[in-house]
């Protein structure tokens, strides 16, 4: 398939020309970033789509490096899916970034874009790690080009630790074979010892988990996202998180055979805990961007949970359930890159127009930023999993796939599943709280600061990119039966079965082939209208449905397509009925009821902090805030001054980052004694090293 090669090459070429252009003609950078970033990502998206729907796998060997073996590029269906997911976020992010990006940052931005695609299409250890490193370095440079530098360093340090872990994992895998290509690794991993497999799994899972934002290695993420310059953060948030998950999927489900349930359980539990901790800190967060960053962690957790569920199902032989869980995970990944890009563009627009990031200071923005507010509302509904938007489909699939655990034999695994399901349900509830708060405190009510009065309107580029993403959100939500078969193309090589036939019953054609459901069962659904649209619409049907096994004879079914149509009809009907019933009445408009007070001041209204207070109280055990409550008496017998300060230190910071940093400080302090300043001891060190090398050399 040369078209795929040509498309990928031309996409990357356009990016590269863009970099050259930006460096040579810095004045024209807006149009250059727009054309090369937008055009390149569209071409790469097309390349992904072509290879996802073609039966063949595009393989090519670029050149051979002496000593390391050939540099191979393979665009299999998994790569194609990730190519689409990354480009889908990169296209609107580039539209948004183009007029906002300045100086050398525009070259760095295009550099990050260039490095994203090779990560998913390279198919040998050397070039994969090279692409991964280039991506990490561009990411670091972009994040550090903001106002604050520390978060970038933190990210770099942790990212490099992650890369080292991944390198170790890949080299351990490659130790058995001669080649470094993924194909050779896959062949050799068929018969590796369980101990080695566990080592590789732990190293790669947590190594890639750094980028994916998994607990306990995600403490860089909220800080880096908050510090990154606003023009590039949609790309970083929408695209790079996916690559961490790509790494996990590539190594742990594709290269390593899924034999034991233990790894699946680790993935499942890590995912569920990540989701809960992520959303918990998002709900109480005041800074809108940090809130979105914490929510990214939560979404990564949901994807990982579904992934873990799929791995367990695959290891225990329930391929159908595994396919559903993997599809849920991939679907959620796609959804997350769409709505998180949308929300970050919205947050960026708000910051740009009003200079505000704190939810406690915002309020009433809907009056001035109508369209931004409207698109943010769509993003918020999507992320809160409200039908008919896209978050609902993937969260529904995730929770349903967890419910399929009833069929498993082992009681222990079932308990883990139930706990993970409960945690995810809690997470879903908190997500709604979190984003109701984010939207209502930001956009509704009264302006809380003077500044929003003199707002600038959102730019056209921001609105176009948000409109694009909102439309994608709605389409992914309304047309799941057309998205699932596409995703299934990437999933079916992992599970070995066709997941879309299991999930989408063929209500649109009566053919019996590939129909897993008995005829009488299908006809029951046809009487309630499951075949509406037959003959006019392509595809198998508009209903997503699967049946539990013998142990749980339950039908899981939903159709956001019909739901959307019904919502539309019911809304129109209600509107018409009300219009008809009140046609003779006159409408009286009165000011809102505010309790009869003279002036409702913004200070009197509910704040974002107040809205999150119940959550803070309920989860006090986890959050454990530092409360400084100091009362001082100004004059005896008179009023006291009360200082109440409350600070939440992130759980992971407390458990991982602080011990880590204090341990390294302690080590450095101890080692500093070596620098005594005496020449004799330095000569002694040199002698010691020399002897050490001689000893090592004598053994080899």
């Amino acid at each position: 398939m040369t078209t795929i090669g040509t498309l990928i090459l031309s996409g990357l070429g356009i990016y590269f020309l863009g970099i050259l252009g930006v460096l040579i003609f810095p004045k024209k950078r807006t149009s250059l970033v727009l054309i090369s970033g937008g055009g390149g990502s569209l071409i790469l998206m097309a390349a992904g789509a072509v290879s996802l729907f073609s039966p063949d796998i595009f393989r090519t060997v670029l050149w051979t490096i002496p000593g390391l073996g050939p540099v191979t590029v393979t665009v299999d269906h998994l790569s194609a899916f990730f190519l689409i997911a990354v480009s889908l976020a990169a296209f609107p992010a580039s539209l948004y970034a183009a007029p906002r990006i300045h100086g050398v940052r525009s070259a760095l931005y295009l550099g990050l874009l260039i490095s994203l695609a090779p990560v998913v299409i390279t198919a040998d250890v050397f070039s994969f790690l090279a692409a991964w490193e280039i991506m990490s370095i561009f990411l670091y440079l972009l994040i550090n080009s903001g106002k604050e530098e520390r978060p970038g360093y933190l990210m770099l340090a942790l990212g490099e630790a992650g890369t080292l872990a991944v390198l170790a994992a890949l080299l351990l895998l490659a130790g058995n074979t001669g080649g470094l290509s993924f194909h050779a690794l896959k062949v050799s991993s068929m018969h590796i010892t369980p101990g080695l497999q566990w080592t590789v799994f732990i190293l790669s899972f947590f190594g890639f988990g750094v980028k994916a934002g998994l607990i306990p290695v995600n403490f860089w993420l909220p800080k880096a996202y908050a510090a990154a310059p606003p023009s590039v953060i949609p790309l970083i948030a929408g695209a790079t998180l996916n690559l961490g998950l790509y790494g996990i999927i590539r190594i742990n489900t594709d290269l390593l055979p899924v034999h034991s349930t233990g790894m699946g359980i680790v993935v499942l539990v890590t995912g569920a805990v990540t989701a809960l901790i992520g959303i918990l800190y998002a709900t109480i967060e005041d800074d809108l961007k940090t809130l979105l960053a914490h929510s990214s962690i939560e979404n990564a957790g949901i994807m990982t949970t579904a992934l873990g569920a799929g791995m367990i199902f695959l290891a225990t032989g329930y391929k159908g359930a595994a396919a559903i869980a993997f599809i849920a995970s991939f679907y959620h990944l796609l959804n997350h890159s769409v709505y998180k890009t949308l929300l970050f563009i919205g947050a960026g627009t708000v910051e740009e127009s009003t200079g505000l990031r704190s939810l406690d200071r915002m309020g009433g923005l809907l009056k001035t930023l109508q369209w931004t507010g409207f698109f943010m509302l769509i993003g918020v509904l999507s992320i809160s999993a409200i039908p008919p938007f896209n978050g609902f489909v993937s969260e529904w699939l995730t929770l349903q796939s967890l419910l399929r655990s009833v069929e498993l034999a082992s009681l222990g695994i079932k308990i883990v599943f139930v706990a993970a399901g409960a945690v995810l349900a809690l997470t879903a509830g908190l997500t709604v709280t979190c984003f109701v708060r984010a939207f209502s405190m930001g956009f509704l009510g009264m302006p809380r600061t003077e500044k929003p009065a003199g707002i600038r309107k959102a730019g056209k580029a921001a609105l176009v990119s948000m409109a694009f993403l909102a439309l994608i959100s709605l389409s992914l939500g309304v047309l799941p039966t057309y998205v699932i078969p596409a995703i299934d193309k990437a999933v079916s090589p992992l599970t070995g079965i066709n997941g879309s036939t299991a999930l989408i019953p063929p209500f649109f054609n009566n053919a019996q082939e590939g129909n897993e459901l008995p005829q009488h069962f299908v006809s029951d659904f046809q009487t309630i209208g499951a075949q509406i649209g037959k003959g006019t619409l392509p595809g198998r049907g508009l209903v997503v449905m699967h049946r539990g096994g013998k142990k749980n004879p339950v039908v899981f079914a939903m159709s956001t397509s019909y739901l959307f149509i019904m919502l539309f009809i019911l809304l129109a009907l209600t509107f018409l009925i009300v219009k008809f019933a009140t046609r003779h009445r006159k409408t009286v408009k009165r000011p809102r009821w505010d309790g009869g007070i003279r002036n409702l001041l913004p200070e009197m209204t509910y704040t974002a902090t107040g809205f999150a207070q119940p959550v803070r109280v309920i989860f006090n055990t986890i959050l454990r805030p530092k409360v400084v409550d100091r009362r001082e008496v100004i004059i005896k017998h008179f009023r006291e001054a009360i200082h109440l300060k409350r600070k939440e230190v992130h759980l992971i910071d407390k458990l991982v980052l602080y011990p880590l940093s204090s341990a390294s400080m302690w080590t450095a302090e101890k080692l500093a004694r070596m620098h005594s300043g005496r020449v004799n001891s330095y000569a002694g060190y040199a002698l010691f090293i020399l002897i050490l090398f001689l000893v090592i050399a004598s053994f080899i």
Partner: protein
Amino acid sequence: MSNWVLKGLQSGVVTTRYPRKEEKAQGISPGFPDIDSQGGDINGREEDVCPTAALYGDSNSLKLDKGRCIHCFRCVRNTGHPVSWTSGFEWASFTEKGTPFPKIFQKSLYIRVVDSGDCGACLNEVKLLNNPLYNMHRLGLFITPTPRQADILLIVGPVTDHMKTALRKTYDAMPEPKRVMAVGSCALTGGIFSSGFTSGSGVSSLIPVDIEIPGCPPPPLAVLHGLLTLAGRTK
């Protein structure tokens, strides 16, 4: 656990039978001077006898403005020509523009109570409507905190300057059909505060009143009678 069930059974039903039966218990009403039956005159200047000028007119045709009377009994104790006294509580009267609710709204009504600066007496009496003795729920009358659901705006107090905005906003926030009920002499005329430097002279100076209930304070049954009159459920 206390034996409240037993106690409740022992004490039986204490709720008044009003309006189905007449309420004849002692001390349910402070009453008013009985001018009609007596005609009569007052020996002396009115302002000496009646501090709130509820009794007015010349000695041949003495009149009583119930909206000003505070039941001080000075006219009864007037040594020259003591005025006789009546009890009873059915004092509610519509103003010129006041009408009962249309028939469809009569069964159940929601009341929004606004304390526009009263001394606490009227509010206390209104509060008693909810206790077991008067229990206005049995008549389909309910208190609501929000004016959006309210049918009746029940106002006590002379309307102080600080409550004007609140009262106006509450009235505006109520949907049609709505009725305004002024309870107590303060709400009717300004009462003993009259039009002082911080208070107005009653509700009608601000919003149109539909029904007036005199008394300082009017007893709960008078308020209940007023509510039923407003609902069009009294004969």
